[in-house]
């Protein structure tokens, strides 16, 4: 099956070769976990390695921020815009959605102008300010995601989780049902150091790796490393050594029983 490679080696492997074409793919994590970096890398690699022009649709984040952040990784977004391979579009969720839902909208025109195949939408969280009704929000996201697919774009949609470490406290899972794949980024505390973990939770229509991998944001972008060995409860944010869990489950109770007798 044809795949749309993100261009991050370990991650493409986890996705069984990459994302599926013309699908919507959610990357969720706390601020600072690297959602936008992963999205920018998807766009940059698409243009430079796979000849697939891209759009960045940003809600309320100025394009300068992306140029600046990308430059830190050696990705020259201004040059790519001048070469008609990239367009960074800042708008609001209500206008972006309305624009995509009409024929001949501005985003559609920009996509056609450069022959865009990929899009980063940063971030879906901004849609949440448009309504308090989860059903309305879900329908809004559904129609937004569909309009991206209609344009033939493979998208990475970021979403912010509200908790920094550990599992998300609220049930923000509506978007997870709408998208075709779901990648979670998490901060993990191990021996008084914060590391980053990545998990592919879902990839509709394809097998994918189920293990939780470590990743780092390096000077050249995201690098996915080995899986967390010998630990469990990674996504809780405070993993334990499996040996500790064994002791807790089997050794401690017998000690307790001894003490009780």
């Amino acid at each position, binding site marked *: 099956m044809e795949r749309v490679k993100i261009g991050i080696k370990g991650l493409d492997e986890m996705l069984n070769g990459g994302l599926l074409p013309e699908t919507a793919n959610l990357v969720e994590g706390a601020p600072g976990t690297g959602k936008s970096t992963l999205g920018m890398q998807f766009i940059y690699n698409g243009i430079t390695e796979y000849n697939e022009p891209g759009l960045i649709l940003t809600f309320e984040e100025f394009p300068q921020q992306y140029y600046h952040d990308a430059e830190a990784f050696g990705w020259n977004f201004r040059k790519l815009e001048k070469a008609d391979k990239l367009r960074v579009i800042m708008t609001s969720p209500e206008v972006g959605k309305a624009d995509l839902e009409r024929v001949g909208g*501005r985003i559609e025109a920009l996509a056609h102008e450069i022959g865009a195949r990929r899009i980063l939408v940063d971030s879906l969280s901004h849609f949440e300010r448009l309504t308090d009704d989860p059903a309305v929000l879900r329908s809004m996201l559904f129609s937004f995601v569909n309009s991206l697919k209609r344009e033939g774009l493979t998208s990475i949609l970021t979403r912010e989780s509200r908790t920094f470490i550990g599992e998300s406290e609220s049930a923000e899972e509506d978007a997870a049902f709408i998208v075709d794949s779901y990648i979670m980024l998490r901060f993990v505390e191990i021996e008084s150091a914060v590391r980053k973990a990545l998990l592919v939770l879902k990839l509709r229509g394809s097998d994918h790796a189920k293990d939780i991998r470590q990743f780092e944001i390096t000077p050249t972008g995201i690098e996915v490393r080995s899986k967390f060995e010998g630990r469990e409860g990674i996504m809780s944010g405070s993993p334990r050594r499996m040996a500790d869990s064994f002791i807790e489950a089997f050794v401690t109770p017998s000690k307790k029983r001894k003490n009780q007798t």
Partner: protein
Amino acid sequence: MASNDLAARLMGDMAPQLLEFLKNKVNTFVKWDLVRFFHENPNTTDTAENIARYAGRDVATIEVEMDELVGAGVLSRQRIGDLTVYSLVEDPAMRTLVDQFILACDDRQFRVKAIYHIIRGMR
């Protein structure tokens, strides 16, 4: 009379197309801010409310000034559903003029002259 002489001297060495742009299009500081905003965000399409928020300005003021920029051919205005949105016009000549204006603003002398012209126009 002396004031007119000073104005003539200040504007004398300004590129004619920029002088015309300044006189007839960017004749207030709010418009100057808006032109800079759209130069930095050339693909932005948004409502007056949101642009006012990004620009840190009052929406009523922004709307009037943006409508004048629409009239001057710098911005375009359109309806998307029940939203009225503004963008930089697609016309390459106008986009080049905007680029030239913002580039010229890097020069302090040009800025001083432009500020003087706007203040004079506000009297």
